[in-house]
């Protein structure tokens, strides 16, 4: 009994030092807030930019054989080439290198770390989201496009009424996975001095010379976040399935 009691009072003492003394829990709250803001902002930017890249890539793949040479074909060709270059650069370098380049080279004059973080992780996520959405578009039978076109819809209408709603539903699990990866990837934001959840733990470690409590603490917070978002996404998926099957 005394062993457990001693262990428990030790844990309680560590907890007090790590989070209660001098209101150190405020670091965690700030870090959590920043982690969530950066993740949500980055996922929105990633989906928006990723969708554009996916549309460029799949439109090119599906239509360039049939397009007449001219201005629009040339534009789409250039856009497709740029998209491929972008995917190669982003997927070919580590995210932590990208975020440092953005902070210390490209946006070195910016003081808004949160915004810079959103842009850095958003640009990174876009490359992965683009390939997810493109695979979703390509997974829709070509007959669906033909049926849409045969009714008289143009390419854009066919995509928005027929192909994309089906593609989105197919890729939702993969997009959810990307969101959860992104949430955890933001842990490298501390490299550029952005106080995210991981850096908050680092600060507490620095001032208390204790590692156990802050690190286990944030691990639990990440885990709870991931479980919560997985549950939320599962609910959304079930709702989409019910609404059309």
């Amino acid at each position, binding site marked *: 009994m005394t062993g457990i009691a001693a262990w428990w009072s030790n844990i309680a003492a560590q907890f007090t030092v790590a989070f209660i003394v001098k209101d150190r829990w405020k670091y965690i709250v700030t870090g959590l807030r920043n982690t969530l803001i950066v993740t949500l902002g980055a996922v929105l930017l990633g989906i928006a930019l990723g969708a554009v890249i996916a549309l460029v890539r799949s439109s090119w793949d599906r239509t360039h*054989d*049939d397009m*007449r040479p001219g201005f629009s074909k040339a534009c789409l060709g250039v856009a497709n080439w740029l998209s491929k270059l972008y995917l190669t650069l982003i997927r070919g370098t580590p995210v932590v290198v990208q975020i440092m380049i953005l902070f210390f080279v490209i946006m070195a004059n910016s003081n808004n770390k949160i915004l810079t973080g959103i842009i850095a992780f958003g640009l990174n996520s876009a490359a992965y989201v683009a390939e997810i959405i493109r695979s979703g578009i390509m997974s829709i*039978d070509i*007959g*669906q496009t*033909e*049926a*849409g*076109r*045969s*009714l*008289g*819809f*143009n390419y854009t*209408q066919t995509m928005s*009424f*027929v192909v994309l*709603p*089906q593609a989105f*539903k197919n890729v939702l699990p993969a997009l959810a996975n990307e969101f959860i990866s992104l949430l955890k990837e933001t842990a490298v934001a501390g490299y550029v001095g952005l106080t995210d959840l991981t850096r908050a733990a680092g600060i507490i470690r620095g001032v208390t010379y204790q590692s156990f409590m802050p690190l286990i603490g944030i691990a639990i917070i990440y885990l709870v976040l991931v479980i919560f978002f997985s549950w939320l996404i599962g609910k959304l998926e079930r709702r989409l399935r019910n609404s*059309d*099957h």
Partner: protein
Amino acid sequence: MTTDTLIEVKGLQKHFKGGDIKALNGVDVSIARGEVMVIIGPSGSGKSTFLRCLNLLEKPTGGTILVDGADITDPKADINRYRQHMGMVFQHFNLFPHMTVLRNMTLAPMKLLGKSRAEAEEKAMALLERVGLADRAGAYPHQLSGGQQQRIAIIRALCMEPEVMLFDEPTSALDPEMVGEVLEVMKALARDGMTMACVTHEMGFAREVANHVVFMDEGKIVEQGTPSDIFDHPQSERLRSFLAKIL
């Protein structure tokens, strides 16, 4: 009855990229208003390619297609407008799986013809009534049999009030017991005077409903005429051997 030409095809060519063979090698044919044209031929003869060229789902590499005298292969032609008046039915139905039957039928009329939801739904329900599927208006395509899906696909095209209907092997993907119900809808459509072009292996249908039968082989029209010309008095050796194999 005067022959009023609706579609005039001249010297149609289709050469697929990367292939040496010409899928279509100079097809000339005209389709009169109110005519039911059936296209038959061995697989690989170009009959589906020909049909798909008529609404430019395949882009011809040569020749012209005149619809009501206007050349739809002209780069400046607004193909989306022409397609609104040319219904197409596919082998695999291609209903939109994420929409109810009713929504499948009202989407295009509402978005393209500017019909109100009430107008579009009234028209759709009348057509569903005609094919005996009014009770399935709220169902999703995967809840229907193949025969039901194909009947819906036909009337989905009819919702756009087309001038001509193109059928690309509409019964080939169906279980045998469902072929009849689809052919019935097509026969009723023919009786109502719809202009139709149909690629099919249903020789009974061709004989009974067509006024114009076209036999294609190797990207060309080998023979064409009335059902009696084609089935009872075939001229060419190729048609005779084709008929011998399938009849």
